[in-house]
């Protein structure tokens, strides 16, 4: 607990830094939001009118002051492109992105970790080569390409997959909101048709993210397993006649998990950012496509809100991973 508090205090300067930098960066972007939102038929006066109503005519420091004071009250401002408060939008969209990312990540773990272990145990065998090929191919294909390819094959040609139209079938209604994760919500409420529909919709985008993230996880598992398998306590375990299953799973894998978990944290955070393109391809109503849209139209508030949310997520994730270390390997102490 004390450790957590200590870590929390370290987070604050980080966040202040993020707030200042994003504020300055968004203002430094080319493009004039007032002119953009005044529309094609705007006169000079109406552009100025809009500039004034957006508060963009004031000096930067005043704008920053009002931004921070609004932020302190939990108000992230209004998006001009979607016309809705940024906080509500992020609240509605974050679960969509998080569900997709987690789904992709879990899928990836389920495939990559056993693959990595097998590759390490049977080093140089055909499994090892498969692992290498799959990982290399996955990481070298850009996500939007994999996404479009999957849509083309499984939706357009084979017709197995539903239309790539977001989280649910167009004619299905969303489950009662509890966590915002459709899979969990529909299970909790026993809404099978929504569960089926959202699972079907998740499969292709989840697979796209999975293919992309296989490489780091599989390679890291393999490398770290190899190191552990070569160490003396494994040799001792083997020499003592333990069956190889126990040796690999109980002794080797547990010790090899530490770097894998670190990698997982990294993969998760970059997936959250990288699924912008996947969201575009699958019309996924997530946070990434929201931020990109806002960036294109120099809509400051959502961009700032997005970066801030990501920063908080990232920090929280790091904290979680640090805590996990202690669980996996009690020798790790956080004071360091």
């Amino acid at each position, binding site marked *: 607990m004390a450790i957590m508090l200590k870590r929390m205090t370290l987070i604050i300067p980080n966040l202040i830094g993020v707030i200042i930098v994003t504020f300055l960066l968004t203002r430094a972007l080319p*493009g004039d939001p007032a002119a*953009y939102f005044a529309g*094609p038929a705007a006169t000079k006066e109406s552009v100025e009118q*809009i500039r004034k109503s957006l508060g963009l005519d004031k000096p930067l420091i005043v704008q920053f002051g009002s931004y921070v004071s609004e932020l302190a009250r939990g108000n992230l401002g209004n998006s001009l492109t*979607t016309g809705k408060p940024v906080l509500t939008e992020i609240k509605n969209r974050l679960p969509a992105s998080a569900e997709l990312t987690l789904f992709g990540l879990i899928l990836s773990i389920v495939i990559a970790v056993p693959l990595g272990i097998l590759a390490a145990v049977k080093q140089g065998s055909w499994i090892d080569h498969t692992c290498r090929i799959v990982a290399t191919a996955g990481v070298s294909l850009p996500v939007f390409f994999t996404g*479009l390819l999957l849509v083309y094959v499984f939706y357009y040609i084979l017709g197995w997959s539903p*239309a790539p139209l977001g989280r649910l079938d167009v004619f299905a209604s969303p489950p009662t909101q509890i966590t915002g994760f459709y899979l969990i919500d529909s299970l909790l409420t026993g809404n099978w048709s929504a569960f089926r529909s959202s699972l079907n919709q998740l499969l292709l985008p989840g697979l796209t993210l999975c293919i992309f993230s296989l490489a780091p996880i599989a390679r890291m598992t393999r490398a770290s397993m190899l190191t552990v398998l070569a160490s003396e306590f494994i040799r001792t375990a083997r020499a003592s006649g333990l069956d190889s299953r126990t040796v690999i799973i109980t002794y080797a894998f547990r010790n090899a998990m530490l770097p894998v978990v670190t990698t997982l944290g990294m993969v998760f955070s970059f997936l959250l950012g990288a699924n912008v393109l996947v969201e575009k391809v699958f019309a996924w109503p997530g946070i990434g496509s929201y931020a990109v849209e806002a960036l294109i139209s120099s809509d400051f508030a959502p961009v700032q809100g997005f970066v801030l949310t990501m920063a908080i997520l990232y920090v929280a994730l790091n904290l979680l991973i640090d805590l996990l270390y202690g669980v996996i390997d009690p020798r790790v102490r956080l004071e360091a």
Partner: protein
Amino acid sequence: MKRRDFLKSAGAVAATAAVSAPSVIDTAKAQSRQETMLIVSESGPNNLDIHGVGTNVPGYEVSWNCYDRLISHEMKTGPSGQAYYDKDKFKPELAEDMNVGDMSATFKLKKKATFQDGTPVTAKDVKWSLDRAVSVGGFPTFQMGAGSLTKPEQFVVVDDHTFRVDFARKDRLTIPDLAVIVPCIINSELVKKNATEKDPWGLEYTKQNTAGSGAYKVSSWVAGTEVILERNDAWVGGPLPKTKKIIWRMVPSAGNRRALLERGDADISYELPNKDFVELKSAGKLNIVSTPFSNGIQYLGMNVKNAPFDNPKVRQAVAYAVPYQKIIDAVLYGLGQPMYGKAPGAATQVAWPQPHQYNTDIEKAKKLLAEAGYPNGFETTLSFDLGFATINEPTAVLIQESLGQIGIKTTINKIPGSNFRTELNKKVLPLYLNVFSGWLDYPEYFFIWCYHGKNSIFNTMSYQSKDMDAFIDGAVTAAASGDKATYEKDVKGFVDLAFADMPRVPLFQPYSNVAMQKNVSGYQYWFHRRLDYRALVKA
């Protein structure tokens, strides 16, 4: 139950559920599918009210279908057999009768008309709505002004169901301007209830809610994702629409929009690349309707205030160097109306857009450039809006190549969508690609904005000519007084002058393309080029 057994049975349940959907749901789905239109497009509205600050074009589509105007247009048959709005024929929408006098027009409102919350539509609502349109500033006020509708005093409540518009001056655009999207009639009491001191016109409320008497109402809107509209069964503005529900989904990837259409999942889509439309058309599985933009032209603009484009000979040389046909073939895949190559000696039409007399003729261009004093050409930049890169980028490259042949070396300057307008409005870009299209389809309307010396923001070239202003002003006056002979003379005058001086080179008239399933009918082309849901039918 043991853990393993539980997992097994859960897996079995999931598997059966995935394989066989209960048939009850299927029939219900099929039925609702029949009465629902699924529309997919790249982007969605940012505001449900066209009077709002910075409402984008998809927002116009919502306004058009959810609000009524006093009057609207009749339909006629368009260039390729599609239904096409008739700019000269008006039909009543909320009004049941229109009486146009010399300096005013009187409207009788339909007595049965009610807003979607059940309150009757009165002349007071009409006045409040039009007052709002001329007062909120920005685009709506500008558009009202285009029809000489500028002051609240022009809108008079005669009695509960009678309403009068007083003309500020004689202007033949006043009545057509009452049939565009902006002068929509809003439920004034409902909006006033939700207005605040800071926001007297209730723009915040109408941004999120529709408060009209129109054929549809927005029942749910998730910005950037979908808009769901339900039919208003009490609509009196016209025959009750056949489609009960519209689901409008935003699908950013053009490839997926096409796949959705081809698989039969989506009913209608527009905003596909021209190449896709051409391929879909030749595949023949879908209905593709292509209509030239009314009163719209994609052009190559030149800044005439600064050298070298201040010299008309240089501009003519550019006009002779543009590879017009190549652009239409390679960039538009034929989906564009040529705006070049009028036969020599052919008479100028009293119409706009119309082709100019220039052809791609490199020798002539070189000669003109030499006469202008640039025998070795010069260097300049060619700018375009990245937001429309599918058309703009290849067009720019073709023009760059062609201008290179006469010695004009161009650097291509790609400007992001959010910044293009800012740059264009500064009026300093030497050479650029842009589109202009006017809602009101009258030649003088186009010329007032694009060529008149009062230098509106659409006169992106900063073109100034006393003769041009005289022709345009003359045509406006003649149109208002019905002097046909003078009008025709002046229109021919300004068209000829625009082609002689060539401050901007018309490249082509773009097409508005819509793809729909074979069982969908009732598509109508409107000046705003968005969909009118009210006529759409699914067989």
